[in-house]
């Protein structure tokens, strides 16, 4: 089936099998490999991207469901050399160790602040419950999100 998807501002038109998962479309068809596959069972959040501005697990969506929609992946955040404030905050707070969960964490964190610009620490922890960090670096991840929220004020 032919689908047309806006990814990070550019429109891609491709022919995909209906059973193609969105994450595989992004990685293998569009060629953006920043979005990781962790569990492949909707649990870990490593594959989180934005669909029309909202965090979604791209292993649990079909590429055909994204036809005509606008996606943002981790590659779409920086403006040239200028990192997104959430990326800056993750760097400043050492919110990554191996980095595998990081693209998904950053995308989920941005969506969280879009919906709740001034979260409490508890709200950040709850809001990131769909994202697992195998290195267990949660403390600094939460710190980074709170710091990004403060910076946005």
């Amino acid at each position, binding site marked *: 089936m032919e689908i047309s998807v806006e990814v990070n501002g550019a429109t891609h038109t491709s022919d995909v099998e*209906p*059973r193609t998962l969105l994450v595989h479309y992004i990685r293998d068809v569009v060629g953006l490999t920043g979005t990781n596959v962790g569990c*492949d069972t909707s649990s870990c959040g490593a594959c989180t991207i934005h669909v029309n501005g909202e965090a979604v*697990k791209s292993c*649990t*969506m079909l590429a*055909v*469901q994204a036809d005509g929609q606008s996606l943002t992946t981790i590659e779409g955040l920086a403006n040239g050399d200028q990192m997104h404030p959430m990326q800056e905050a993750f760097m400043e707070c050492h919110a990554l160790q191996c980095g595998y969960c990081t693209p998904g964490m950053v995308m989920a964190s941005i969506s*969280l602040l879009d919906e709740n610009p001034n979260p409490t620490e508890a709200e950040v922890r709850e809001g990131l419950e*769909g994202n697992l960090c195998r290195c267990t670096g949660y403390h600094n991840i939460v710190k980074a999100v709170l710091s990004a929220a403060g910076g946005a004020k």
Partner: protein
Amino acid sequence: MIPVSFDYARAGSADEAIALLAEHGDEAKLMAGGHSLLPMMKLRLAYPAMVIDIERIADLSYINDGGDHLAIGALTRHRAIETSALVAEHAPLLAHATSQVGDPQVRHRGTFGGSLAHADAAADHPSVLLAMGGTVVAKGPGGEREIAAGDFFAGFLESSLAADEMITEIRIPKHTGGGWSFQKFNRRAQDWAIVGATVQRNNGSTQVALVNMHPTPIRAAAVEEALAGGASATDAAEQAHVGMEPSSDLNASVDFRNHLARVLVRRALNEAGID
């Protein structure tokens, strides 16, 4: 994991979806948010030959004030329910329970109709529908019918919808100020309930429903009868496991589930204002 190959059609309206269901029969499955169906297809527990995508039926995504009830379109996402001022005012139990479903990513995709049609005893919304005494509007080739919550859940992962029917709307009676509670016990963030208890009081009567205590979503009839007979919350809660056939799995044995049901029902009754 990649699902078995299937054909895909996108329905633009309920009538189109119903016509496609009638044409393809057992081979076809509706897909709303896909957050129950797609994981099952990836595990190859489901392998429809035809997926009918109903997600874009825009006129089935709404939350309206219907006078004595809220009318909620089947394609309304969990996130919309969780953040709706109307739901917060007239069905606080539904708003709160919805905020406990999965995680934000899941709530951005999952729909109210999908949650109910999936008829999972471990899911949160069926217990809310039962406790609040809601109804489900089903549309088929012959028109619409309204199914009471108590008649909707027919078996394990099975609703009483006919093969060519879809849910178009869910009606939730407005809460009239009585207490309510939703108690969900799980070990991992974002997970389904190991056991849950839902209580809604309305005009002197108390309705209690349980999550994951039976092959189907279910009302705790023995607890409700004890309360109607004047029992205290503590005594009534002792009946929570009566008539239930919970499963035993990695998370909990039957005995532990029975214990959880009694404890959670007691807490829920207390939180709803019953001593």
